[in-house]
């Protein structure tokens, strides 16, 4: 198996110095990701507009394609305002604390079979651990801005990110149990015939839900909700700093989508195998990643924002027990050496139970006819429980 460190340009491969080649790889990935994010902002506006029967950006360039460039120029040239009472160190450090881990995560991601920055035995654990470091930045930004809404948003971000990290790690652990390795590369190779979404649908659903919460995207955008905390931790940031926060959000979206595509959809391995060449592999990876991103946008336009207590109890009372049950059942399958079909049966049953539970709670109950006592209704009109 070829696992050499191969970078974008073949000449880079000739470098013997590992530190220098790693630095070059980071620079290449950072540039590609920044351009990708610029396109993603355009695509998000277009896709959401399409779902809401609008046109979206149309003025700058054909179909508004040059809009992200105009936006970037505007944001970079804007004046960066810092509140006089803000804590200088926390204010500036929070940017780095959010920005750096998001890009460090990309180091461990194998884009094709032999196109990545650094091979690692524990790359899945690395992605989860380093990605989790950025949480501190949200709290720092909230506290350092010296703004009530920013602090509220920071506290909400802290609670939400810590809570949803646990079901996410547990769902990944279930997959690691099935594969027997915490290396993303091995997990991809394991799926040469059947992708893991078939064997572990419950873990997939938990991962998908926790991902939307970790990315703070709608309907889990409680830390940044405009109508509640007026933008949350980013409220005092403007110009280039604000755009760095936004950039990081989109980079995280790419990273988690790639992770989902690799771990559950088979990445570049399924369904064509390793031998189809890196071009097709990259295409396959990108298509699977795009599926996740389109799903996130679809969810964004479809569901209203949750309440804080609903969000927290969903993580702790619903997702966590289901994730633990999944791990326990996987352990039984491993210990007694049962066939893989049992995995599908238990996990699929769990996934159906989870979906039924969510549906039974959120479905709109049929209206009861009002019972009148005198001139007032006896009970409040049938309310939508959440």
């Amino acid at each position, binding site marked *: 198996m070829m696992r050499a460190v191969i970078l974008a340009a073949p000449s880079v491969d000739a470098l013997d110095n590992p530190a220098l080649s790693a630095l070059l790889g980071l620079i290449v990935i950072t540039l590609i990701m920044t351009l990708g994010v610029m396109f993603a902002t355009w695509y998000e506006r277009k896709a959401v507009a399409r779902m809401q029967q609008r046109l979206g950006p149309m003025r700058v360039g054909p179909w508004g394609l040059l809009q992200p460039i105009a936006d970037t120029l505007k944001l970079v040239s804007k004046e960066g305002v810092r509140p006089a009472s803000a*804590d200088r*160190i*926390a204010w500036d*450090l929070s940017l780095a604390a959010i920005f750096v881990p998001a890009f460090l995560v990309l180091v461990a991601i194998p884009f094709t079979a032999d196109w990545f920055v650094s091979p*690692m*035995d*524990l790359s899945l*654990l*690395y992605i*989860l*651990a*380093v990605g*989790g*470091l950025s*949480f*501190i930045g949200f*709290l*720092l930004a909230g*506290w350092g801005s*010296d703004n009530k809404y920013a*602090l509220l948003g920071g*506290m909400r971000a*802290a*609670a939400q*990110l*810590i809570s949803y*990290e646990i079901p996410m*790690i547990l769902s990944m652990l279930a997959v690691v149990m099935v594969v027997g390795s*915490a290396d993303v590369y091995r997990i991809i190779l394991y799926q040469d015939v059947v992708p893991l979404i078939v064997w572990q649908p419950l873990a997939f659903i938990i991962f998908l839900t926790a991902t939307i919460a970790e990315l703070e995207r709608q309907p889990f955008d409680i830390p940044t909700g405009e109508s509640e905390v007026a933008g949350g931790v980013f409220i005092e940031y403007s110009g280039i700093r604000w755009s760095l926060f936004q950039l990081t959000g989109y980079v995280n979206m790419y990273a988690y989508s790639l992770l989902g595509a690799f771990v559950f959809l088979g990445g570049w391995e399924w369904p064509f195998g390793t031998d189809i060449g890196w071009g097709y592999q990259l295409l396959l990876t990108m298509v699977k990643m795009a599926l996740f991103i389109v799903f996130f946008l679809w969810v964004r336009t479809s569901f209203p924002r949750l309440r804080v207590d609903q969000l927290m109890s969903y993580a702790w009372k619903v997702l966590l027990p289901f994730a633990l049950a999944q791990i326990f059942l996987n352990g039984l399958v491993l210990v007694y050496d049962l066939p893989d079909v049992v995995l599908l049966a238990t996990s699929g049953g769990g996934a159906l139970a989870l979906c039924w539970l969510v549906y039974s709670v959120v479905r709109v109950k049929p209206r009861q006819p009002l019972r009148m006592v005198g001139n007032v209704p006896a009970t409040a009109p049938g309310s939508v429980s959440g």
Partner: protein
Amino acid sequence: MTLLFFYVMAGTILAGALGVVLVRNTVYAALFLIMSLLGVAGLYILLSSEFLALVQVLVYGGAVMVLLVFALMLTRVHELDKKMSGDQWPLGAVAALALLGAFIGMWTQTDWPRDPDQVTLVPFATIGDALFNRWSVPFEIVSLVLLVALAGAIIIAMQEEGER
């Protein structure tokens, strides 16, 4: 090269640890704490135990975050610069010195391997095997103790809320 990394990491750990103790501002103290803990993770990587390093980052990243939340909820910004020491500081000093003595004792008693080439690399599957097969009963007892502590904390918090 390895020696250089070691000194950088050791300097990070020491500077972070000193910062935690010496800085008055609780938020900065928490930041210095994560600097120190990340330095320890770097040392683990130098010792070729990536699993420990990543678990260190994963666990203490979240732990420092919770610490920050407590620091924000239990202190006020204009009180941050006040001197915070109560009557129990001699007891604290005795406990800290006793712990230091225990560590120094352990350090002198242990037979450290002098040759870096003789250090055996432990793959993380072996760690899991040791935890869940060989030492499964102590592992379960530790988990139970943590669970009891968690339940106790929740019960104490619930009672306080009910009293109000």
